[in-house]
């Protein structure tokens, strides 16, 4: 894993809201095919860091690159390489599932000819075939989460960013989401945030612990037998 080049580089990044630092001097790298878990309590800066990587927020200081593209100066090229599921799972409720996935694929610049195949593949992977014609507003929370994951994967991005992907899901849906993330490992670079230690431990190769906007530690999960003790000692 360590031989592969870094796909995500966060270099001494700070984000200020007025005088308050949501993220302070964070530096980390995520390598190709790696799953990195961002762990920290609510308000630790996880979502702000992810939003800066997606280009939704600009850093106050420092630099972020995705697949070699600066997320501010070369924002569109960086965004083309990213699939993103925000914490709130935003979807256009008035659209049908298939229509929404086609819209997102087109928006991300997927060639018209490649679109139906890509949608069919992602629908099969996330077991969405039976609801493709259903309006999104009629779907359960679990299906909505799957649709959100599908829109993040439909354009086959190098980097997948998931902000609290298991929030509000029932145990079966959590297991399904976990399996999907595990299946993505190796084929995509995945950055996942959570405040649930057990979830991160099961899917991530490495874990980065954030507290009050500062990066406290980055550890390989396999080399940290008692992650819980480490987390408690740091936070």
């Amino acid at each position, binding site marked *: 894993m360590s031989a592969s080049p870094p796909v995500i580089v966060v270099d001494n990044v700070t984000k200020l809201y007025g005088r308050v630092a949501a993220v302070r001097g964070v530096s980390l790298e995520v390598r190709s095919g790696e799953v990195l878990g961002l762990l920290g309590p609510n308000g630790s800066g996880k979502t702000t860091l992810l939003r800066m990587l997606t280009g939704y*927020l600009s850093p106050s200081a420092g630099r972020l690159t995705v697949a070699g593209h600066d997320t501010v100066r070369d924002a*569109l090229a960086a965004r083309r390489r990213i699939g993103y599921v925000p914490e709130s799972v935003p979807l256009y409720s008035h659209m049908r599932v298939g229509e929404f996935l086609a819209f*997102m694929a087109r928006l991300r610049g997927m060639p018209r000819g490649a679109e139906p195949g890509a949608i069919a593949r992602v629908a099969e992977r996330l077991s969405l075939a039976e609801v493709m014609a259903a309006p999104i507003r009629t779907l359960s929370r679990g299906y909505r989460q799957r649709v959100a994951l599908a829109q993040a994967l439909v354009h086959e991005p190098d980097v997948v960013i998931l902000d609290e992907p298991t929030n509000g899901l029932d145990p079966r849906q959590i297991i399904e989401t976990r399996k999907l993330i595990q299946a993505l490992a190796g084929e995509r670079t995945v950055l996942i945030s959570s405040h649930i230690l057990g979830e991160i431990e099961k899917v991530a190769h490495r874990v980065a612990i954030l507290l009050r906007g500062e990066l406290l530690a980055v550890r390989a999960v396999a080399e940290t037998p008692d992650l819980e003790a480490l987390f408690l000692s740091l936070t």
Partner: protein
Amino acid sequence: MRALGVLFRKELHATFTSPIAYAIGGVFLLVLGYTFSLTLFFTKVANLTYIFHQTYVLLVLLVPVLTMRVFAEERRSDTLELLLTAPVAEVWVVLSKFLASLALVTAMLVASGAYAVVLGLYGQPDWAPIYGGYLALLLLACLLVAVGTLTSALTENQVVAAAASLGTFLMLWFADSVAYLAPAPLDLFFINLSLIGHFTTFVRGSLFLSDAGYYVTLSLLALFLTTRALADR
């Protein structure tokens, strides 16, 4: 440009499937139809000057309701995050919403063209003021929709967006009144800022580039500010 087409189709679908669009269109045509019939019945004169001024007032009142949701709704439902993390420049997002709202207002204006057809069939109207009037209404619609889009981008509350749009329209409408209080040469600035001042010349059948320039410049300024508001994150 492809992204603009993709976004425009989505916005057009959202606009024309919204009950608000049909409510606004219905009220617009009902009030205009009533006014047109009444004016024609009483004056027996084949012109639309009165109708154009009525349309002006209706657009000032109805466009805030039409545009209040364009960005405010995306902010409320968090879908703006989806749009702004897609590889699409902010300007395309703004233009797609502006063009979709403008398409609805244009459709309403086209439907009101039936009154001009009626005049043409049963009378001999002077067509120059009618063409000028419709051009003025289209330019006015551009400006109102652009300002409405801007206020919607500044808040996630639709009512606040509508109130801010209406307030801005009314201040622009009555800007020339301030000229009486302002010293020269500031008075000229307020006179030239007036929404109605530039509108009336068109309706009289006189076309001045400066009047068209006023609407185009302010529309572009509002769209530029909307793009900046979105980009400033």
